[in-house]
């Protein structure tokens, strides 16, 4: 099999939760990514969930997922030896991915201060910009999501505002981390020099809020009744034309878009169209009314249906309904199974499956590399960097 598209790139991964998804994305694309750990082990090995086992040593599923395709070395940064090893690792790297406060980051900055490593790309994925009033704020995912604008969008009128499941805000900053590294690499290949790049988690989240700034800037011009800020309102989309509805059995995301006429035809077949064939609904000033009336009719109708049957019937009609699936049904999804998407993965002695490729390259395929135990690659890496003990 061919190598991955990044097989000629060496990366030092000094990230924490804020950037680690980016390191994973680059590693799974074939880059040689080395993740140094302290002698006590990567603190992220303590993140749940864990493989259930009677062994004393807990194997972290979280760490295994986010640290796929990496090579592991431990460094004693309290010793001169460890610092020298870090310096050699920096010398060999094309790209260093960092998050302030993560293992090895401050020492790396000290080392690089005295070196002229013109080609090195140094990515700093920070919560807030270092010159900002909030620079020292501590922001785990839920705090980052609150300040970045995500949490205000999610939840319902009768619930608190909600964070996204897991740490999806950091998966956004992680993706931007990978983009910044690859763009700087592209530029280095063209211009010859590396550079420092700052990625602000706060701005990353704010840049991925779909309608939020559109409402702020254009809400009044759009004559939307909520004006500049759309309050949280369950799954009802800003356009009012997508909503999750509870069926007699299961739940389903329903939308009459993109072809209202197609939806209306179906409603006529089902005799649930009420007065929606009235030409008044085609007048531009009645567009909102048409959407709301259609959704109301659909809600009553969906409540009498089996969600799964309705989903397949809608898709048969090329309508983008979506069945609400719990995780255990995603695990058995026929589309993913048919594409042989889940891939075998080994975490310690435990054999399992992991998620597959987010992109399929025709010539240089994505590949999930092995998950390594702590310092598994110690000897090989030290040899490669020319460390002579």
């Amino acid at each position, binding site marked *: 099999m061919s190598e991955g598209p990044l097989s000629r790139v060496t990366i030092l991964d000094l990230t924490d939760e804020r950037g680690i998804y980016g390191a994973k994305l680059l590693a799974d694309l074939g880059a040689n990514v080395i993740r140094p750990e302290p002698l006590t082990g990567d603190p992220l090995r303590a993140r749940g969930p864990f493989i259930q086992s009677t062994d004393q040593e807990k194997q972290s599923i979280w760490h295994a997922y986010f640290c796929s395709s990496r090579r592991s070395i431990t460094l004693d940064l309290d010793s001169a030896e460890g610092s020298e090893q870090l310096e050699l690792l920096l010398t060999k790297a094309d790209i260093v991915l960092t998050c302030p406060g993560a293992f090895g980051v401050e020492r790396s900055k000290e080392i690089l201060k005295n070196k002229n490593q013109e080609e090195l790309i140094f990515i700093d994925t920070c919560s807030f910009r270092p010159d900002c009033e909030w620079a020292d704020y501590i*922001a785990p995912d839920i705090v980052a999501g609150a300040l970045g604008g995500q949490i205000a969008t999610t939840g319902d009128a009768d619930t608190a505002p909600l964070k996204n499941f897991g740490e999806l805000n950091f998966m956004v900053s992680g993706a931007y981390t990978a983009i910044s590294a690859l763009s*700087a690499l592209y530029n280095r290949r063209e211009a010859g020099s590396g550079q420092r790049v700052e990625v602000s988690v706060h701005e990353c989240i704010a840049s991925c809020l779909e309608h939020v700034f559109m409402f702020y800037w254009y809400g009044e011009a759009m004559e939307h009744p909520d004006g500049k800020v759309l309050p949280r309102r369950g799954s009802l989309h800003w356009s009012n034309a997508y909503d999750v509805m509870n069926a007699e059995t299961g739940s389903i995301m329903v939308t009459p878009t993109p072809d209202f006429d197609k939806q209306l035809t179906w409603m006529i077949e089902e005799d649930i169209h009420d007065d929606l064939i009235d030409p008044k609904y085609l007048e531009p000033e009645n567009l909102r009314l048409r959407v709301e009336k259609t959704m109301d009719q659909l809600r009553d109708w969906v409540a009498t249906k089996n969600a799964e049957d309705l989903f397949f019937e809608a898709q048969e009609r090329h309508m983008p309904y979506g069945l609400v699936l719990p995780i255990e049904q995603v695990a058995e999804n026929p589309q993913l199974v048919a594409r042989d998407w889940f891939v075998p993965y080994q975490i310690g002695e435990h054999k399992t499956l992991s998620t597959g490729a987010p992109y*399929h*390259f025709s010539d240089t395929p994505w590949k999930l590399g092995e998950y390594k135990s702590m310092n598994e690659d110690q000897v090989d890496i030290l040899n490669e960097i020319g460390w002579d003990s």
Partner: protein
Amino acid sequence: MARPLEGLKILDFTHVLAGPFATRMLGDMGADVVKINSLDRAVGANDPIHPYYIMWNRNKRALALDMSHESARKTCGELCQKADVVIDNFSVGVLDRWGVGYDTISQVNKKVIYIQMSGMGDGGPWSKFVTYAPTIHALCGLTHTTSVKNRQDIGIGFSYNDHQAGLHGAIAILAGLESRRHSGKGQRIDISQFEVGVNFVAPSLIDHFSNRTITEPSANDLPYDEVAPHGVYPCLSNGEGIKGENWIAIACMTNEQWHSLKSLLGNPGWAEVDSFSTMSLRYKNRRELDSNIQNWTKDREAYQLMDTLQQAGVPAGVVQSGDNLANKDPQIRDREFLFAFDELHGEVGQTFGDKLPIKFEKTPCESYVRSRSLGEDNQSVLRDWLNLSPEDIDKNKSEGWLN
């Protein structure tokens, strides 16, 4: 100073959000992105004067073609020959029908990175299924899990997966370009937006494959780790109803942070009981803990409280709306993250943007050109990419396929 991707030529057949977001980023970083507007598809949120379109299509040039004309399709083919990257997020097969599918274009442009971002990917029993982000959220488990117990109708309040599909599209393009630099060859990249989405619940899926765990909605808890307090709490309102609500997120990830919070609370009796004495016990009794914290936060002003908590080393953040981000956020203000475009839009007037969240030291990306009207850059694109003269362009226009 040049931006990092200057010189890169991208032909953009994308629509709605996922694809346009990918090419917007690449345009922000200096790529020459030419957006093809097929006249029959430039409606609704894809109409260049719709605010939604304006949001995702800055830093691109606009070429409008009537793809029902053979000459338009021929011109499209010629542009594809010049492109480093061709990208679309239509359903599988649309570009093939226009004569610019991968099999055709890769014969005449061996170096092209050709990326297709369909809902389900090319292949599999659901490959023809139609999806938008809310469809994907439902199918990949994010709607089920982003919720409170016994509710299936909440989910993420915006099109998260569209943004992420765009980010992953940009990563794939840049990785493909790195590979091409060494191999000299382009390639095809197939993205299933569904598969991108399923990755976001990966730890839960591996937990299920390994331990048969059933993942429940986790509301504001961390789904896999026992951390408490870890929630969103009400603060002093400044108006009636939901619009007047103010909230703050507080998360004590360590014992030290909990002790700091307790000090700020005044070490009340309720916080000193055994049931809150360890992280594990706080997690077990977190609803009672949340109730006590809420009693403390509800009469306090959110920003002042955040500042007090952060000064004491307790992670806390105001739940900011778009209005708060625009008017109360010092980083957004100091960096001028939100801005008005210098040039007015010919049909809409003043338009606005948010900056790329990446700051390059040597190749800063501070150049922002407003979203364009339909066919606004026909002349410059056909001149720069195909060396057409103004006379040739006028002739094409008179034939009716160039807007």
